[in-house]
């Protein structure tokens, strides 16, 4: 089977601002039709990478592009197929929402007005108000409306729900799922882990300008520490349990065994199959735990 050509390809991307090394060699591939989460704290290089993809920044070294196009050389052709929500969002003050949408629409060669109205209704956005009179959340909604209005092949969303209330965050996730169902690819950068956890198929975690982990959400969860609590019919097989790989802080207390797993749960399950277990509790790992583990690790 021939592997599909990735939609976004980043090879050895390096970006320095003077002496500051914002991105220190990123390699990534995003496949067509997937929602790709880009996680990392502020200053980890997420926005810099995204702005390189949009052709706003010129890479110091390496290559970044999409659709087989180079972001620097073929920026106009690339951006024709991309919709973007900037992380730091500033809009022109003097225009109303309606005027701004119309203006961007003219630059993109038009849009469907009924789609605009539909999106405004879903996002509960009054486009007739001046942009300067909107709250930061409502300004963000204007940018989101624009991102979903043109039905672009690639949505590049940098901290898209910053300032939105939980109801709107939910609506946003719905829009992402619909876009994906319609064939769009989504590059979702966020430090809101729950958002990425719910929306993304695959995730890359950035730290100090480098990708420190990459995989599916499930894989990343698998790396997280899990708290397990097991009740046995008889005395727990303490020595065998303590000898399992990735078992941290094991405690045997009467018929109960508790521990933290820092790796796969499979060896534990194999052992338990040979014993009489009354009940078992595994606290589902949160991506946040996985995330913190990665950040808590050695540099």
């Amino acid at each position, binding site marked *: 089977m021939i592997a599909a050509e990735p939609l976004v390809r980043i090879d050895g991307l390096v970006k320095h601002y003077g002496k500051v090394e914002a991105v220190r060699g990123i390699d990534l591939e995003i496949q067509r039709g997937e929602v790709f989460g880009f996680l990392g704290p502020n200053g980890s290089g997420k926005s810099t990478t995204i702005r390189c993809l949009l052709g706003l920044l010129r890479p110091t070294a390496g290559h970044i592009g999409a659709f087989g196009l180079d972001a620097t050389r073929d920026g106009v052709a690339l951006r024709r197929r991309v919709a973007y929500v*900037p992380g730091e969002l*500033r809009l022109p003050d003097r225009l109303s929402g309606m005027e701004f949408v119309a*203006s961007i629409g003219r630059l993109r060669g038009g849009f469907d007005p009924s789609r605009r109205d539909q999106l405004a209704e879903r996002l509960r956005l009054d486009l007739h108000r001046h942009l300067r009179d909107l709250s930061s959340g409502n300004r963000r909604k204007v940018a989101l409306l624009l991102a979903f209005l043109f039905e672009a092949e690639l949505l590049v969303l940098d901290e898209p729900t910053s300032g939105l209330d939980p109801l709107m965050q939910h609506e946003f996730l719905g829009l992402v799922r619909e876009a994906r169902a319609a064939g769009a690819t989504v590059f979702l950068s966020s430090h809101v882990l729950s958002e990425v956890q719910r929306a993304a198929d695959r995730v890359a975690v950035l730290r100090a300008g480098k990708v420190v982990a990459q995989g599916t959400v499930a894989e990343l969860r698998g790396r997280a520490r899990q708290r397990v609590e097991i009740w046995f019919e008889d005395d727990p097989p303490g020595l065998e349990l303590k000898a399992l790989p990735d078992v941290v802080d094991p405690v045997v207390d009467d018929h109960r065994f508790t521990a933290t797993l820092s790796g796969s749960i499979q060896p534990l399950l194999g052992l338990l199959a040979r014993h009489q277990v009354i009940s078992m509790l595994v606290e589902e790992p949160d991506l946040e735990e996985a995330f913190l583990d990665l950040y808590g690790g050695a540099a």
Partner: protein
Amino acid sequence: MNGRVLELVAVPLRAVRRATLWWAAGLASLVALTMSVWPAFKGSSGISQAMDQLPAGVVQAFGLQDFGTPAGFLRGNLYDFFVPLLLAIAAVTLASGQLASEESEGRLELYFAQPVDRRLVLLGRAAAVLVALTVITVVLLIAQLVSDAAQDLRIDTAYVASTIILSALLGALHGSLAVAIAGLRARPSLVLSVGLGVAFAGLIVFSLFPLSGAIAPWRHISPWDWAFGGNPLERATELWRYAALALPSVILTAIGVVSLTRRDIAAA
């Protein structure tokens, strides 16, 4: 494509609309107010004699010679440096506002992220400033000609028009310098200090260098000399003077365009 280009001019034009009207109204008022005192100066030899009491260098530096004549009055009160300097300030501040300020505040991010060449974004904004400057100049010209007629100041209309056009071209030259600097760096303070600094330096060279024999020939390096060295209120202006102001404006704008393609877009 044409719709896109028009949009890239229309958006900044809309943004500078109010400032343009204020500049136009301000300059028209300045002209009307100044012209209202012309009847008191008209043909007055007393004023000229009073000016003659001043050191010759001061009279020359501030354009105070022949105050009682139409050309001398207009030069000394409006066009020796006041109006051209105001037009240069208007062009530099408008260009800085629409390019360096907007970019450094992150307001151009969503425009640069659209499928348009970033060079067109800059050119659209430079064109909007040029349109604004043209509107200000036309209002200024109308205000001057109407005031001339109302106050019975008799001067060749063509000389007045060419003086005002030269003032506008001098403003455009400094505006283009602002565009070039904004293309190099999205720093409003840098754009304003270079743009306005060059305007003031040029004025000083044009006004004060002729007072000293040794450095007098160097006055020709000033764009102000290219514009007004031929005394356009009293003589027909040579064509090369228009070209000497327009051509560097085109080159400076081109420098801004090329520079912008070679650097990062500033983030908010």
